[in-house]
């Protein structure tokens, strides 16, 4: 059965498509900004899910690809005068390539060792960028305000960036759904369940894992470039925030690892909650602590996440929630 013949294939794509369209029609700046943040995390969580949910490798280093890819794209854009779209794609390609190289080293590790190695990578990347001259060292890079004129002014540039992000988010969800429903995806899930048994059944695990890692790293590079372009500057502290990696993990666990809808849903719910916590006077400095407590509760009581729980509880929903 082709993956796209299932209704569940179209559900997350359709939802994000309509959501972006509504924002475009309303043309409100605040709505665009909040949607940008939420969609960014939908893309981050869904791309991480290709590695974490399908392949079963827990990475705390997802933000490295956002940071380094974003830095590279932003460098091309601000220093070399490249147009936004090719710069973003170049950022994504760099992230993917980097994941391929890193994968050769760290994908031999399993379980907790892999997770620990990815934390190390995050710190190493931050230290590298802080000392790398072309990327502006500790002060980072910024876009000359004149550059926005090429996009029809700052306001128009922000809308263009939003449209790109919307398309990238749709692309992530599409790739996620295609991988899940493919022969390749079945191999990844076999690795997740029992890597040794999968290899004995013929799954070329080293190659499959590397491809999954590269695929999951490609999109953050694009998203990073778009995000930094929207902000107009980039600095090491913004680009490599370990807590963003952890928040992406919470979103996946909340929504349901290994499903297409789950991470997207988790990102929307988490960001909604985060917005509430940040604005409430009682919790405003505690939102990360709340994220930690959430993660604990989910792992203890609903390890399959919301979507996983629904699929288990109501088997009929399996066709719709993939």
């Amino acid at each position, binding site marked *: 059965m082709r993956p796209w013949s299932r209704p569940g294939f179209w559900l997350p794509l359709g939802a994000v498509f309509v959501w972006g369209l509504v924002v475009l029609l309303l043309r409100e700046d605040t709505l665009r900004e909040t949607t940008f943040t939420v969609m960014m995390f939908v893309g981050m969580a869904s791309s991480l899910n290709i590695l974490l949910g399908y392949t079963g490798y827990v990475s705390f280093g997802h933000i490295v690809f956002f940071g380094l890819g974003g830095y590279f794209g932003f460098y091309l854009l601000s220093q070399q005068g490249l147009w936004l779209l090719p710069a973003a794609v170049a950022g994504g390609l760099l992230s993917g390539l980097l994941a391929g190289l890193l994968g050769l080293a760290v994908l031999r590790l399993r379980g907790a060792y892999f997770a620990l190695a990815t934390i190390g990578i995050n710190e190493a990347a931050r230290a590298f960028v802080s000392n790398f001259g072309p990327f502006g060292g500790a002060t980072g890079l910024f876009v000359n305000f004149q550059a926005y004129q090429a996009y029809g002014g700052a306001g128009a540039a922000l809308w263009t960036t939003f449209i790109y992000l919307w398309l990238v988010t749709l692309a992530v969800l599409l790739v996620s759904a295609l991988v899940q429903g493919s*022969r390749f995806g079945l191999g990844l*899930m*076999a690795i997740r*369940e029992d890597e*040794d048994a999968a*290899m004995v*059944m*013929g799954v*070329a695990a080293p190659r499959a894992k590397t491809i999954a890692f590269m695929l999951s790293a490609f999109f953050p590079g694009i998203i990073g470039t778009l995000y930094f372009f929207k902000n107009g500057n980039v600095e090491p502290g913004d680009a490599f925030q370990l807590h963003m990696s952890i928040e992406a993990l919470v979103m996946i666990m909340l929504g349901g690892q*290994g499903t297409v809808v789950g991470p997207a849903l988790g990102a929307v719910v988490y960001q909604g909650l985060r917005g509430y916590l940040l604005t409430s006077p009682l919790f405003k400095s505690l939102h990360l602590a709340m994220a930690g407590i959430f993660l604990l509760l989910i792992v203890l009581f609903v390890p399959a996440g919301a979507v996983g729980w629904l699929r288990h509880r109501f088997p009929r929903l399996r066709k719709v929630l993939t």
Partner: protein
Amino acid sequence: MILQVRNITKRFGGLQALTDVTFDLKEGEILGLIGPNGAGKTTLFNVLNGVFPPNRGQVIFRGEDITGLPPYEVARRGIARAYQVVRPLNELTVRENVMVGACYGREALSLAQAARVADEVLATVGLAGRAEQLAGSLNVAQKKRLEMARALGSRPYLLLLDEVLAGLNPSEIAAMLDTIRAIRESGVTILMIEHVMQAVMSVSDRVIVLDYGQLIAEGSPEEVVNNPQVIEAYLGDPQMTARLLAE
């Protein structure tokens, strides 16, 4: 000869797990591999399908030297294996488990073809009614059948069965033996490790015996059970038993 094993030697640190193991396997044959616990039977399987490379020796499969290839390359050449301790992919359905074998095995099928093969194979091993269930929810006997189905899904030339009868009750054993014979009828060569002696004797064409990593006997089931060395390996010195009984 579908499989030629030549002078396989495997050491783990100071432990000599296999010493100079040499035997042949004819196409369409069922070869039983027996021996006391710790004799190196499972290690031999691990060397044959590429989990460990041997320290010395060669494995030649259908005329090709496959010594030291990684397990997934061995699988693609048509050797499948059912584990002694079942290893189902718990969060995947029974059908998907078999589809992994079919997609990545010898024929490298597409998903749609693999689903068809999986349903066929599940019918052969008697799990057709459970195709949609998660593999983790099966009972032990069903998981053993799933192991077998997964191996068969890859349409292998050679099937390595590691104690597929262990832990089954007599009626389940009888049913499994029928399945094994049916698999052989379909043209698959089988090498099986087994502790249930009557079973291995009734189903095997030939039996080889490992003891302390060495091949100590080879022949028809009758020859092997009457071989004094084999009796000694299993029961200790037969003369001593006779003496003890005489006293």
